[in-house]
């Protein structure tokens, strides 16, 4: 096999792996492991069934994406469909904004946590904030080096995170370290089902970032489905192991369930492994957010949906990546990591993302029911029912974010404020862009 053959094989492999790795970016983040651990403490063995249900609902959304990209190829096909089904404003204020909030606030939180992990697990004398900035710098350089750098890094980060998690899971199942704690007799009661169900839905949010990891005419839906399946299986196993090794009350109440479980499975070695998984997961999540959000902004700017400067430069994502990284750096530098409001912003981002999925499902349902000219092919009643069920679940989950949160008033105020900002900007920009004629090609293509 010559060098060119090897390069070709590796290139084709990357072309298939990168969208899956991008789809898994947020899923294997340390935040996901915390949500999973707490849910495992509440649900015990029942977690698998709830995860399966959540996975099926998200698979429905992934199949909706399959129909979107069959009709509107290209990464911003979702924006086109929402624009076609209703108007550009929901696409701007909800779908795009959800990724933007996550890219800034979730990245800040993840990098801050990574700093602590590195400081407490690996090098106690290295300043935690300094490490957060180093990690941000590394990811910035990866993204500025072009799609190839970001893609290679993403596949590597996901490989490390997923591989590490599977290793710890196998170690737990085969009892390589200490044996698990004795399980209580009888079925494990599933305490607080609504909270567990919401947690399982939130665990799998972010698979749609694969949309921005494909070439122009690609269909990322298969990568999304593979990611949801892989993540669901991995979480089921790790969740089971966590519940077997750590007492339920401790697992559900701690802010670091994944570390406690890893330590219970393999002692100090397990703790170091989990440190590595957390750092790899952070890199995967932040890299995916930077790459996907910058690409989304650039492509929307190309169509007149966002200010044109966001698509400037030889590599059109350069400005977007720099703007996002600067925002995250400003958050870190201003001490946002120590502010409780950061958690509220992150929850607000999740609310917007749930709304985004609702919009997608409703848009596909609407266009399939109405058979709008140029819409995806008519769907059977069974599929329409699935779409409706998916939409209802996302809507319920959105309400659940407030109902189940003790600080729901603060969360509601934050969501309303962020939505108002997005709406003001969106309304102004759409009007301005229309006057300039920048939106004409996009709107004409919608028909």
């Amino acid at each position, binding site marked *: 096999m010559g060098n060119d053959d090897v390069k070709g094989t590796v290139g084709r492999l990357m072309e298939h792996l990168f969208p899956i790795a991008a789809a898994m970016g947020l899923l294997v983040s340390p935040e996901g492991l915390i949500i999973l651990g707490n849910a495992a403490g509440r649900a015990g063995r029942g977690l698998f069934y709830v995860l399966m249900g959540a996975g099926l609902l998200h698979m429905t959304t992934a199949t909706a994406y399959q129909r979107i990209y069959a009709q509107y190829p290209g990464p911003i096909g979702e924006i086109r469909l929402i624009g076609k089904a209703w108007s550009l404003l929901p696409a701007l204020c909800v779908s795009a904004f959800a990724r933007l909030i996550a890219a800034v606030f979730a990245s800040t939180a993840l990098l801050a946590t990574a700093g*602590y992990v590195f400081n407490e697990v690996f090098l106690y004398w290295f300043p935690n904030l300094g490490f957060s900035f180093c990690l941000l710098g590394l990811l910035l350089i990866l993204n500025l080096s072009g799609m190839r750098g970001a893609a290679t890094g993403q596949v590597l980060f996901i490989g490390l995170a997923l591989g590490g998690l599977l290793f710890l899971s196998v170690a737990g199942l085969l009892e390589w370290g200490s044996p698990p704690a004795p399980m209580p007799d009888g079925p494990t009661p599933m305490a607080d089902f609504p909270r567990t169900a919401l947690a399982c839905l939130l665990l799998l949010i972010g698979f749609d970032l694969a949309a921005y990891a494909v070439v122009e005419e690609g269909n990322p839906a298969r990568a999304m489905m593979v990611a949801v399946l892989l993540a669901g299986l991995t979480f089921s196993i790790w969740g089971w192991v966590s519940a077997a090794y750590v007492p339920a009350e401790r697992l559900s109440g701690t802010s670091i369930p994944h570390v406690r479980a890893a330590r219970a499975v393999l002692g100090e070695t397990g703790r170091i492994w989990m440190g590595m998984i957390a750092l790899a997961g952070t890199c995967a999540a932040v890299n995916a957010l930077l790459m996907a959000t910058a690409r989304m902004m650039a492509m929307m700017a190309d169509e007149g949906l966002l200010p044109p400067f966001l698509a400037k430069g030889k590599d059109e994502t*350069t400005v977007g990546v720099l703007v996002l990284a600067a925002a995250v750096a400003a958050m870190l530098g201003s001490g946002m990591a120590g502010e409780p409001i950061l958690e509220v912003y992150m929850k607000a981002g999740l609310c917007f993302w749930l709304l985004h999925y609702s919009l997608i499902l409703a848009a596909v349902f609407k266009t399939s029911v109405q058979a709008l000219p140029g819409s995806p092919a008519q769907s059977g009643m069974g599929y329409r029912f699935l779409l409706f069920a998916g939409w209802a679940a996302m809507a319920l989950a959105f309400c659940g974010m407030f109902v189940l949160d003790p600080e729901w008033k603060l969360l509601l105020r934050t969501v309303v404020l962020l939505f108002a900002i997005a709406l003001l900007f969106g309304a102004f920009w759409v009007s301005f862009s229309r006057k300039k004629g920048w939106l004409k090609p996009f709107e004409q293509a919608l028909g």
Partner: protein
Amino acid sequence: MRRMAAFISGIAICTALLLTAVSLAVSADVPKMTKDELRTSIEKGDVIVLDVRSGRDWKSSEFMIHKAVREDPGQVSSWAGKYAKDKTIVVYCA
């Protein structure tokens, strides 16, 4: 464009390092204790150690100093009166 991007990244990194140096210099006025001094004081029972970490600083950490009491840094007026003024109070955060 790439050169500009690399230049901006360099400026950002230098700014971060400068800010770190400034914060270290500013905090030099606050009396400090080494970890060995603190350990000895805790063993003697001479100090009250308050953990005032908040947000991610608290959530992400595995550890807490032995015998430290957790207090909310945003509610100082509610707990400041609880502690004897004749004792040394050590406050730690991130």
